[in-house]
């Protein structure tokens, strides 16, 4: 059934993505590897905007933009060029930002997401290239700021800004679009979403097909969804009270979960765009065939192939292809000959579930080891190896450990600080499934040691049986099968 969108919600997004996989900045040879560096150590006269310098465009940045354009099924412009966007703010040392205006490199495209009523097409208006400004740090809080510190390490990083049509009809669809978009970029290997400031989103939203409000600079997908939920509620309340929605820009306060008015559009920006005379126009459509050759299999294609090739469910295929490194890890496990369905269950349901529970984001995969870092604290990192998954699932398949134990081992590896194989962990914790005679001995001991409970049970108190089973489980450290233990006790006592 088609989604009716009862509140007439329209959401459009503008997404800034940093091409942080490039080695150098957009217009100079400064390294992009500044994330743990001291301020102003990754700059040069060009990205500091000193007079008399001449920017020269990074060829790889253009290639990346074309890749993104192709993946979004966008038109690549025959001729494209840069403009200067003029405004005064100290994050821009030149007094203008080099960006693209009426000749963006990527024109109309689309992304298919899972919408409120099945597949839903979100139109891409355009995507263009621009440079990132520097980073400002307020001394004290923003309201009581005593001054601002500027670090130009980020200044001049290559950005791609993608603008969508207002085609999303709920905050959930906006979130799904962002997840899909990020996933595509990671497949293209142009972007590492785990780095600080890698993706920033502005969201436009209106209700009842009315005036739109822009929410600026939201830094996480969850943040976008929360900001939109709040803003939709606010707009509906304003209208219910007979008020009018103003065309304005608002800021999302992550901590309080509210949007705050920044400025109304009456004092409209006047950026005085004009051609950037220091940069030559580009004609790069001849590159397209060669770049197409390098395009990887994209998420939708991989998902379809996984279902076909491995015979797994759509749910599993979708989950496994939601991160390219997870998809590669899964294929690494399957390549050893493990049953793909079993591998899918353990990778998509258990392993990924445990990662999400811990807020761990997958950050690397080298064909053997999958690495992850904590989403909020990159200091916390850990890894998991293909052979460990194989060993663990094999032990489970052979009946040597219970499924609970296998899950426990995965947890131990994720939480552990030392490198250990599943067998080592199982042995250390004494979690190998108990041998039958061990259980028999535990049952005998339990009966001997708990005369009172035995009497109660024989006297008709069923609850006491549970207690006795519990004692057996305790003696075997949980390795006994509870059902077997129960049967053995009953057999022992009632014959």
């Amino acid at each position, binding site marked *: 059934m088609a989604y009716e969108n009862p509140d007439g919600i329209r959401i459009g997004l503008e997404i800034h993505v940093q091409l942080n996989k*490039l*080695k*150098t900045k957009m217009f*100079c*040879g*400064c*390294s992009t590897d500044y994330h743990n560096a*001291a*301020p*102003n*150590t*990754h*700059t*040069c*006269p060009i990205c*500091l905007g000193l007079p008399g310098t001449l920017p*020269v*465009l*990074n*060829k*790889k*940045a*253009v290639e990346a933009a074309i890749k993104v354009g192709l993946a979004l099924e966008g038109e690549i412009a025959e001729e494209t*060029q840069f403009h200067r966007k*003029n405004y*005064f*703010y*100290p994050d821009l040392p030149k007094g203008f930002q080099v960006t693209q205006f009426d000749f963006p490199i990527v024109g109309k495209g689309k992304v298919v997401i899972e919408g409120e009523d099945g597949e839903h097409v979100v139109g891409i208006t355009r995507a263009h290239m621009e440079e990132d400004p520097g980073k*400002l*740090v*307020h*001394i004290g809080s923003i309201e009581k*700021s*005593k*001054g*601002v*510190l*500027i*670090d*130009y390490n980020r200044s001049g990083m290559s950005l791609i800004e993608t603008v969508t049509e207002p085609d999303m009809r709920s905050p959930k669809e906006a979130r799904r679009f962002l997840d899909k978009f990020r996933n595509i970029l990671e497949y293209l290997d142009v972007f590492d979403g785990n780095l600080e400031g890698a993706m920033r989103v502005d969201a436009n939203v209106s209700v009842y097909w009315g005036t739109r409000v822009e929410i600026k600079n939201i830094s996480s997908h969850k943040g976008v969804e929360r900001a939109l939920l709040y803003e939709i509620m606010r707009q509906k309340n304003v209208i219910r009270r007979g008020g009018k929605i103003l065309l304005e820009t608002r800021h999302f306060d992550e901590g309080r979960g509210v949007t705050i008015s920044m400025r109304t559009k009456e004092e409209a920006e*006047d950026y*005085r765009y004009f*051609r950037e*005379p220091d*940069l*030559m*126009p*580009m*004609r*790069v459509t001849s590159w397209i065939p060669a770049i197409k050759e390098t395009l990887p299999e994209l998420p939708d294609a991989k998902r379809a192939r996984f279902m076909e090739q491995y015979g797994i469910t759509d749910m599993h295929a979708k989950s496994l292809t939601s991160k390219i490194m997870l998809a590669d890890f899964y294929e690494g496990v399957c390549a050893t000959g493990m049953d793909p369905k079993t591998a899918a269950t353990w990778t998509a349901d258990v392993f990924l579930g445990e990662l999400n529970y811990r807020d761990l984001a997958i950050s690397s995969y080298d064909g053997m080891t999958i690495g992850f870092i904590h989403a909020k604290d990159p200091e916390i990192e850990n890894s998991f190896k293909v052979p460990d998954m194989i060993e663990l699932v094999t032990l489970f398949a052979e009946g040597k450990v219970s499924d609970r134990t296998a899950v426990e081992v995965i947890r131990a590896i994720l939480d552990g600080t030392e490198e250990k194989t599943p067998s080592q962990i199982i042995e250390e914790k004494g979690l190998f499934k108990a041998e039958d005679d061990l259980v028999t001995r535990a049952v005998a001991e339990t009966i001997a040691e708990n005369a009172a409970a035995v009497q109660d049970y024989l006297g008709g108190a069923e609850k006491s049986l549970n207690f006795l089973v519990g004692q057996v489980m305790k003696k075997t450290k949980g390795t006994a099968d509870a059902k077997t233990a129960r049967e053995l006790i009953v057999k022992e006592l009632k014959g």
Partner: protein
Amino acid sequence: MITKEDVEHIGWLARIEINEQETVEYMEKLNSVLEYFGQLDELQTEDVAPTYHVAEIYNVFREDVVEECLPQETVLANTENKQDGAFRVPKIG
């Protein structure tokens, strides 16, 4: 025609303070420049593609190769307004 209000607006955009007398002066000067360029309107340009760049050069790129950056001391050498390796500026907005 450029009005006094236009001049004031341009002054604000450039963050330049302009007094009453200067406003009138700049208005006259800007209008005379525009008038001069207005002569171009006499030409028939309907079938001429716009020129975006006078040099007909396309595709100037550099390879993605890291070069040395400036040391922090050099970057900050020309300012007294610094703190913890950063430029320090007054509170904004």
